[in-house]
């Protein structure tokens, strides 16, 4: 077994608490850098402007506007937060390598897996902060339209956050095997195209040959199921209540498993890489 594997698996190498501290320290640095770059504020302003502009549609009365306002809110939230997740996740590690800030990090008594975990947690934190800013601003805009906050909206926010963590993990994994631009492009394709692909698979399954059906199942299992975390249609339309707890639990489990798999793949690629 190689030294990197031994050091990762051996619990006596570093106590868990210290490992967690490593990850949190790295994540804090990512957050600090992102906040000081002021990029998140741009996202918030764009989102807020879009929502406020929806107020110009008051021509048709409030009843018609409520569904549209909620629909626009979930669309804005989903779109911008996904953009932040993909861009953040796909650039963190390549930027470290290109800017050579990686060397003083790796010089520390810290495994490469710790580095990946810390960066991942940082990406998730930055994405959640952006999501939170957008959620607050869109919430304010909805309040201006007289839309009440419902429990299903709270669940929408929770599940969306979980989905964004998966997006970060996938983007980070992609960035370890391709250039940052290619990773971002592929990240966007998966983030915005996976649901379409899954819909096409369900539509074509019944009329497909047995071999193709087997392939459809394989593709469906491999693809990140981002669409499952999107309760936008329930949150935007009326009469749809919150989902049962088992659904939330199942999605949490899926998010943890899929993200772990992506991070493991990223580590496998990174552990023997010459930097």
């Amino acid at each position: 077994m190689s030294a990197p594997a031994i050091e990762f698996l051996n619990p006596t190498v570093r106590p868990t608490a210290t490992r967690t501290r490593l990850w949190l320290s790295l994540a804090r640095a990512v957050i600090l850098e992102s906040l000081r770059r002021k990029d998140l504020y741009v996202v918030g302003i764009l989102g807020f402007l879009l929502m406020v502009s929806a107020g110009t549609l008051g021509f048709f009365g409030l009843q018609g506007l409520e569904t549209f306002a909620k629909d626009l809110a979930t669309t804005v939230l989903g779109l911008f937060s996904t953009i932040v997740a993909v861009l953040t996740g796909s650039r963190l590690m390549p930027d470290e390598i290109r800017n050579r800030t990686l060397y003083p990090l790796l010089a520390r008594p810290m495994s490469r897996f710790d580095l990946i975990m810390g960066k991942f947690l940082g990406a998730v934190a930055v994405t959640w902060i952006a999501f939170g800013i957008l959620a607050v601003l869109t919430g304010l805009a909805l309040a201006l339209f007289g839309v009440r906050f419902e429990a299903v909206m709270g669940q929408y926010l929770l599940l969306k956050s979980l989905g964004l963590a998966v997006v970060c993990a996938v983007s980070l994994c992609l960035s370890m095997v391709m250039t940052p631009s290619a990773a971002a492009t592929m990240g966007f394709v998966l983030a915005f195209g996976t649901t379409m692909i899954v819909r096409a698979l369900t539509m074509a399954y019944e009329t497909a040959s047995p071999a193709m059906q087997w392939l459809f199942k394989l593709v469906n299992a491999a693809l990140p199921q981002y669409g499952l975390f999107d309760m936008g249609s329930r949150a935007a339309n009326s009469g749809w209540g919150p989902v049962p707890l088992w659904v939330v639990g199942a999605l949490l489990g899926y998010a943890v498993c899929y993200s772990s798999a992506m991070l493991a793949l990223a580590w496998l690629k990174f552990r023997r890489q010459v930097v």
Partner: protein
Amino acid sequence: MREALLWGVGAATLLGVGLGTTQLKEVVHPPVKPAGLDAHETHASSSLLGQFRTSVSSWLWLRTDLYLHNGVEMRHLTQQELDRGKTGVGSSDNHDEALHNDELIVTVIPSRERDFRGFFGDLDRATKAYKDMSNHGHNDPKTALPLFRLMTWVDPTFVPGWTTAAAVIIRDRTEEANQKALGLLREGLAANPNSVGILSEIGFVHVSRRKDLRTAAAYFEQARQAGRAVVERLDDEDQEALLHGYRWLGLIYRDLGRTDSMREVLREGVQLFPDDPVLVRLLNPPPQVLSEQGQKAWQEAIQEELEGARADDHDHHDHHHDHEDHHDHDHP
């Protein structure tokens, strides 16, 4: 991150330029353009901006379906499914008020029995707006009005946006609603001066809601002038609008006692639409064997058929289902 800002600014700039087309109209849209050309497509093919606007308005158009079905995504049955005998969810329970026919559509998310995804499918059905849509109901079409407003702002040449919005507004059957609809249609007419669809719709509002036959006739005449020479080049919706224009003109001239004008219009209409039973019946007098009561019933039947066909006019989902076999407008 800065790239996201640039993309956002770029998209907003495109949208802004698109929305501010008043100054550009004289250059991009000549004052008189052939009504036969689908300005929507012409505009799209002439510029990247046009393509962007067309895509956005088309996306918004499809999204109206989602609003009507309270968030449940629906799709048209594929030819393969139809050949295998699959049926749609059935008509909505308030078909009279529906804007479209749901006979041949099914939910995008399949039912548990037809879903190969197993547990993932269960999660999908749990987190989405999904339910058994057999004999389903529709939301008030007014919920989709913001989308119509938005699509006409993004792409003023998207005629169905104007006409369908007006049709939804006048369902209120109040004078306030009529004026709102007319205001909207005039705005649409300013952007599409030779649109058969918009001209016909204005005429319809005047004749059916305001009972103003003369004003209605003037607009139907404009539609007739704009469309009759280029009827083969009109799209399906404009052809349908032109046909109804002829029908209404025939009826209006008949009610105004202008028999010669009526015959002229109806003969022309029958030449262009030889298979239309309403025009044929209007042109030909009722059989002499019918009693006075029978002749009255004959006329009423024509009127009913005309108004029934008019309701089908607003079946915009049939049209977009014809254009799109499947569209997934879910967002991440």
